[in-house]
């Protein structure tokens, strides 16, 4: 483990199995070949996050980004592999050490509505954890909460409202305020600025940058918006169907993507259009983590796929200084 690595993701896998329903169980007893479906949400990811960096995490919808984020935040244990925070296995911590680690790593959830208690006023949602953990004294609490609300661009007087009384983007900012209120060291931001209009998005991103400068915060920043990810990240990790396929310096990775999937992503970054555009449907069936294709997961959609891709899994390896990629093409290019 290197000096500046704060979080080590070591061969982490997460599988979910969807149980059979009654009809299927009966059919199975009668001899039908029905198996419970297993979802390979995250498939053997190894990755170091450095202290004080912003690591961007991108990839197709359903490729396992939130699942990886939830494991990092200690909200669900890996099926295989370990996650070490400052050298300690988060899943094995007990008592105060576990509570402390859970506070240090905060997650801002993708779905603010279902992560906020609908029966609590927003000022209590934000103030609860800092109060319970003695981060802020009782007397300073009201001012503390108002201050955080203002930082995320919400009128401090809205603290008395309940979550359903906010607009979508306002609610997303309540989720951000709640995570910031416990003064974490490590933030997992899951599509945290997706619901925000560009001006408020700029305000929140500027806040993230400032917190990082002032408090050396480390971020894992999940987003589908490559423009935003490139802007805020030091490094970018690209996932495809549960696996890490490319990792590298943010600007360089966007400028010179190595992996064909990253290339496809970068080529499709939306730009302002001056007229109506005709959007293209995806050709062929979209591979799924319920029955991932053999070999390279990307081969059914890869324009460069060849025989080896259909049978052999490409390993993630260094292809240039500071750049890792998992594609067989890097072997043939001698």
């Amino acid at each position, binding site marked *: 483990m290197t000096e500046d690595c704060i979080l080590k993701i070591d061969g982490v896998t997460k599988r979910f199995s969807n149980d059979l329903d009654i009809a299927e169980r009966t059919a199975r007893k009668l001899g039908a070949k029905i198996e419970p479906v297993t979802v390979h949400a995250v498939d053997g990811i190894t990755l170091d996050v450095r202290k004080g960096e912003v690591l961007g995490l*991108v990839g197709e*919808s359903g490729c396992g980004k939130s699942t990886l984020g939830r494991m990092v935040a200690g909200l669900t244990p890996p099926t295989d592999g370990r996650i070490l925070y400052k050298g300690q296995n988060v899943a094995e911590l007990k008592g105060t050490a576990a509570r402390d680690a859970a506070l240090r790593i905060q997650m801002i959830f993708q779905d603010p509505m279902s992560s906020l208690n609908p029966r609590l006023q927003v000022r209590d949602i934000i103030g609860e954890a800092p109060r319970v953990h003695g981060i802020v004294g009782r007397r300073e609490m009201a001012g503390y909460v108002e201050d955080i609300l203002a930082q995320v661009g919400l*009128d401090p007087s809205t603290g008395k409202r309940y979550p359903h009384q906010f607009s979508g983007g306002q609610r997303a900012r309540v989720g951000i305020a709640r995570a910031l209120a416990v003064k974490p060291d490590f933030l997992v931001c899951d*599509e945290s600025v997706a*619901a925000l209009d560009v001006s408020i998005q700029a305000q929140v991103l500027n806040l993230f940058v400032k917190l990082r400068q002032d408090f050396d915060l480390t971020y894992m920043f999940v987003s589908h918006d490559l423009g935003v990810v490139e802007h805020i990240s030091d490094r970018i990790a690209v996932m495809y169907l549960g696996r890490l396929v490319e990792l590298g310096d943010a600007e360089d990775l966007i400028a010179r993507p190595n992996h064909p999937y990253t290339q496809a992503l970068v080529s*499709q970054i939306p730009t302002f*259009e001056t007229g109506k555009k005709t*959007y293209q449907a*995806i050709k062929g069936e979209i591979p799924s983590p319920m029955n991932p294709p053999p070999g390279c997961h990307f081969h059914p959609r890869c324009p460069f796929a060849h025989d080896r891709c259909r049978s052999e899994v490409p390993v993630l390896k260094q292809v240039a200084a500071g750049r890792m990629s998992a594609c067989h093409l890097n072997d043939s290019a001698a």
Partner: protein
Amino acid sequence: MNPLLQVTDLQTHFFTRDGVAKAVDGVSFTLEKGQVLGLVGESGSGKSVTGFSILGLVDPPGRITGGQILFDGTDLVAGGEPALRHLRGKRIAMIFQDPMMTLNPVLRIDTQMVETVRAHEDVSHAEALRRAREALVQVGISPPDERLKSYPHQFSGGMRQRVAIAIALLHKPDLIIADEPTTALDVTIQAQILSELQTLCATSGTALIWITHDLAVVSGLADRLAVMYAGRIIEEGPTAEVIARPRHPYTRGLIDSVPRGKRHGAMLTQIKGMTPSLLKLPKGCKFMPRCPRADRVCEAEPSLVPLTSERSVRCFHPHDDAEEVLQP
């Protein structure tokens, strides 16, 4: 011929303990069959509440206090719940910003989709299931047969959003109000969905209200763009023109804030000042405290005035038409 939807001077207010929040305050627009209207604007500016109002889904302490919503000749405000009940889901569908407003967490997706189909059409269970499967394929959910048997919590965030879109597509409605429908979707899946919607608009004449903050997507999709601020439309016109030559200072600030081509890690341009609270709106122009062009004249209330036959703006000192912001 009448437009499909004509909204005139819509007022939707929330009567809270601290005062009246005029979430929608005099919104007017029209939408033709097959047309796409992009509705953009600051968080909290009233975009979702405009959508809820059309569908009659504003809950107390909120209510529509004025205006008219004509859908295919029927006044939905005057007609109330009886007029809306058989339109909702069938001829007008809404894709909610929060997919869990559409999805029931304790029911499997197949059950929910089959119920939706059969609520408005007398078809067999098998036929309804076939339609449900087809809709999932349209939104790129794979493998459809296994996914139909899943519960909402077994989907990723973006997949839940897509299931909600699939449900809205089931009846090929005349009007879809899509509220931030692709916020969490990567570019490939987004293109897949946009392509399906474009096909639907072209073949079934479905009209679309596309509520979003994503200017890049809306610039390629919408015929017209309406920009909202503090419950009002402050600029309206053909999409390409509004994006390339915004006339209102707010629209301009919005476009300047997009993080594209800016130096990595640098601070982004943000519109100065804070979104005003709806309970303490300034007199005169609502954008005045934040506006770089404001002067004494702006202490009066500007109205939405046409600049050309195609464009209108609510501002006393609009930007010059010659000032091009974006070099596409």
